[in-house]
């Protein structure tokens, strides 16, 4: 088995597991963490391809993803705090105000 194929498969599995977590879990914080898992899977594939082609562009992209993840968490946690304060629950099925 080739090392690159192993690592790309692992990154795809991490992405799929993260997506599955976002779909099936009910807790908002757990869903946020599963989104982080998806970003980590993408990072692993970027690093693998950057290694394969020996270019620094992949590593630069990984850094930008780090920053985007940090910004995402910085915005998402206050929103979750607000939602939890208004609805007194972290259950996603309670947040149906926009449903009409």
């Amino acid at each position, binding site marked *: 088995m*080739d090392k*690159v*194929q*192993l*690592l*790309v498969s*692992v990154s*795809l*599995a*991490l*992405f*799929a*597991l993260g*997506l*599955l*977590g976002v*779909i*099936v*879990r*009910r*807790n908002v*914080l*757990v869903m*946020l*963490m*599963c989104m*982080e*898992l998806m970003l*980590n899977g993408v*990072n*692993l594939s970027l*690093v693998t391809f950057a290694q*394969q082609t*020996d270019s*620094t562009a992949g*590593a*630069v992209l*990984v*850094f*930008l993803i*780090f*920053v*985007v*993840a*940090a*910004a*995402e*968490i*910085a*915005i998402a*946690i206050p929103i*979750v*705090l*607000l939602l*939890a304060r208004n609805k007194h*629950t*972290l*259950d*996603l*099925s309670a947040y149906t105000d926009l449903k009409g």
Partner: protein
Amino acid sequence: MIDSLLAYLDTLFLVLFAGGALVGAVLMLVLRAPMRVALALIATMVCLAAIYGLLGVHFIAAFQVLIYVGAVMVFMVYAIMLLDVRDPSFVGRFSRLLVPGVAGALALLGVLVYAAWTDLPTLPEGSRTAAFGLREFSATFLNEYWLHFELVSILLVAAVVAAIAVIGVNRGERG
């Protein structure tokens, strides 16, 4: 002899840490308490950092630990400690979409892995050059990608302002 042993050890550790990352990801889906999910995610991230180290990009491994585990996950753990309410999402972990979600994720994973295994060109052995170091990365980063660097700083400022605005709206409502 020593070289082949080292290469074997390298592959062994790679498979070990890849398996650890996958186990952590699966644990994230099945564990009930958000704090344990956070710990599983931290374990996955540390395993990924070890993989980056094994691949030779040590600075990305360091930043994975510093930024992801050190900043993002500590923030997440604070939020969990602040908000750990025992609610319906604690009793029933999964939503109604469990069965279609699992089926869809399995189908997606199958398609993606099939595409990765058939279409990826395999490099001939020994053609891989030495991994780029921090010096090359920094030079490229600040020479070619300086605009992205500046844009990212604007994004971070916007995120901080937005976070303060979200909290401020709530304060205003409560008077």
